[in-house]
């Protein structure tokens, strides 16, 4: 089945009734849950959504085109699926650039490591390919879906912007905007063009809206779709209607962009390409994604070394055996072990990771040692982030969010 047929099939699958979906895992922008007691089946997800696996040959290609080692998230299969990423690479090879688009729904001040992942990866993409980036803060979405005032959601957007900036984006090629501030003008014109091409039935099918939902929810999807089109940013991409867009995101955002890709050719633009990541597992295990409402399910960027140590030691689900003897005999279950999973996200050294997996899996290394190493790695990461975050001033946020030209954004 070619990719286009897979996509069509996927849109049709979305029309399953809620009852049929109950038996299955649930993955959409507002909810992620595995089948009872299990983990997320990513193969099934790729099948159902109709996107493609990122195979090793694509990773090699990225390394060749960027003349540098692929990011650890690519090497370890954290970013594992895509749509049309090879078209982006083809165009890049021909000298045609693209721009990056990613975003965050600022629902809380506390960011955890799971939130940072798409930003860390996007920062690498920006640096490796030397391309501009737009970052959307969907403060309107959070206002519509959560119990927040407009003021509060705008404030959270600015606070989150600081953590995002701390990931090291190039201020000379990055535009951060909040919906409440920026929507209007050409951006709004695109929103309306998009809304005219999507029916109520379609959004019900994709997002599961019901009759009792307020119309704010129904009108939101075009807001998240519009940044996929360069003409939404006339101060940046004026005259470049042919510019392609690449969207790094977690795979639960796929439904928005399926809808966007469906509309794109009908309004004369390239379909945005996607590169998608797994969910970062919660400390307690791989049955869903991290939740901002349970502080012990995640490591936050504000956690001190002590807190990190405590959380990992106390809450990180271990695949080790109950007793040392049993462990030496059987080894650890690497499939469910959270410390190993976290290390595979954040431990840069491939050789060390391999060695650790081997020793732990065979029982020669104990859980305590693996956890200790993880604590070191995470502490360093969080420290670096905190340091960078402390250097971000309100003036810097203003500069990143100013509607300004970005000369040399492709150099």
């Amino acid at each position, binding site marked *: 089945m070619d990719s286009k047929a897979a996509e069509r099939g996927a849109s049709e699958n979305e029309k399953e009734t809620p009852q049929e979906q109950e038996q299955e895992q649930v993955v959409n922008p507002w909810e992620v849950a595995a089948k009872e007691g299990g983990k997320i089946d990513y193969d099934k997800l790729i099948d159902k959504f109709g996107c493609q696996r990122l195979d090793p040959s694509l990773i090699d290609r990225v390394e060749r085109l960027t003349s540098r080692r692929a990011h650890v998230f690519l090497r370890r299969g954290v970013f594992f699926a895509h749509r049309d990423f090879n078209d982006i690479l083809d165009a890049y090879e021909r000298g045609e650039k693209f721009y990056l688009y990613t975003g965050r729904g600022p629902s809380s001040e506390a960011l955890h490591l799971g939130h940072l992942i798409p930003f860390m990866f996007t920062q690498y993409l920006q640096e490796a390919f030397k391309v501009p980036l737009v970052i959307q803060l969907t403060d309107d979405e959070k206002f519509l879906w959560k119990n927040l005032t407009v003021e509060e959601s705008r404030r959270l957007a600015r606070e989150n912007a600081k953590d995002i900036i701390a990931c090291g984006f190039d201020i000379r090629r990055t535009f951060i905007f909040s919906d409440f501030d920026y929507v209007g003008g050409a951006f709004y014109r695109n929103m309306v063009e998009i809304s005219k091409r999507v029916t109520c039935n379609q959004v019900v099918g994709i997002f599961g809206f019901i009759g009792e939902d307020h119309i704010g929810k129904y009108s939101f999807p075009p807001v998240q779709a519009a940044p996929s089109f360069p003409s939404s940013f006339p101060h940046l991409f004026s005259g470049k209607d042919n510019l392609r867009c690449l969207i790094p995101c977690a795979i639960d955002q796929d439904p928005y962009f399926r809808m966007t890709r469906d509309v794109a050719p009908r309004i004369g633009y390239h379909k945005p390409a996607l590169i998608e990541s797994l969910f970062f597992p919660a400390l307690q295990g791989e049955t869903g994604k991290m939740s901002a409402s349970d502080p012990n399910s995640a490591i936050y960027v504000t956690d001190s070394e002590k807190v990190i140590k405590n959380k990992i030691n106390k809450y990180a689900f271990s695949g080790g055996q109950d007793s040392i003897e049993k462990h030496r005999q059987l080894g650890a279950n690497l499939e469910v072990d959270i410390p190993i999973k976290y290390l595979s996200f954040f431990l840069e050294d491939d050789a060390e990771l391999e060695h650790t997996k081997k020793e732990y899996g065979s029982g020669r290394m104990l859980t305590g040692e693996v956890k200790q190493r993880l604590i070191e790695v995470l502490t360093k990461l969080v420290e670096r982030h905190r340091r960078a975050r*402390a250097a971000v001033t309100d003036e810097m946020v203003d500069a990143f969010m100013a509607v300004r030209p970005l000369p040399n954004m492709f150099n």
Partner: protein
Amino acid sequence: MRRRGGGKGTQTSDLPFVSHGPQPIVLSLGVVDELQIEFSQYEHPVVMTVEDQAKYVGNSEGGLSKNLFLKDKKNRFYIVSALADTKVDLKVLSQRLGLGKGGLRMAPEEALGEVLQVPLGSVTPFALVNDSARNVSLLLDQGFKGQERCLFHPLSNDMTISLNVCELDKFLRSIGRDSSYVDLEANPPVGKDNPPDLAALVPSDSIVLPDLPEKAASLQAPPKAHVVSNNKSTEITAKATEPSRKVKNVKDKPVNSVQPSSSFKDVGQFVEEILDKTSALLLSEITEETIKQHGQQLGVVVSNCIRERLASELKTDTTLYMQTAYTEGFHVARKMFQSTDIHHQFRCL
């Protein structure tokens, strides 16, 4: 007041003439909860050095203290309070704090007034009562614990008070501070496998001083020839009841109390920090062992190691530097256009 007996010398003469002799005075310090702290108090002429101070009070029971007011490259401040005989090596301390070698210097004179609000020659742990000193870290000599009493200046150097170090702890607790006792003469190794043992004592916030073109003459305490004041007790209480006095230089930023590191604006500081990090890593990688292990190849090995370990940290730092510079430029441009109204052109079209 003149000293009785002739000649100089570190040997003290009789106890100094003070209008009120040494006696235990229980005072209430108007700090928090009217703390009752037991101490004895001596007046004497202004003294600028420990030797001079010793001439007047060295005979009384108690370990004389020396107090250093220090600053690191990131504008963080420290008071190191030690027994006069304890050897304090700033290079060693600097490493133990994780500031690299040579990361600690004596703080400039302006800082005494701005941060500690004491005159020259009066550095004392008691200065922490001032709100302006809330981010100053205090390191106390472990040796104080072995003394019956210790001698400090209160907030000026024409007086010395003698108290048991537990009373000092009480005072510090009352202003919300911990007492951190350190073996100041220890010299533990610091390197890859031995993290700096005093790193926790580094303040989380830096204090940025304004550029004072004229060194305020008021900072120089005029030497008082005679001690006249009868209100000895007010010296401490006066400052203590002004907890709302903020450091004048903290710009009126509404909420943001964390001052971003100034090394991202100052080229010299920035470069020094890079060199400090590189040099620290270099020095820690060249040991007898590694020389034996790698011989001629050590240069290449260390060079690769430096690249590997520092690349991403230096990238982060440099990105922050660049972001800061851009932000400054952006705001200058915005100001320029605001005055001519051209900025309206940049609205979303």
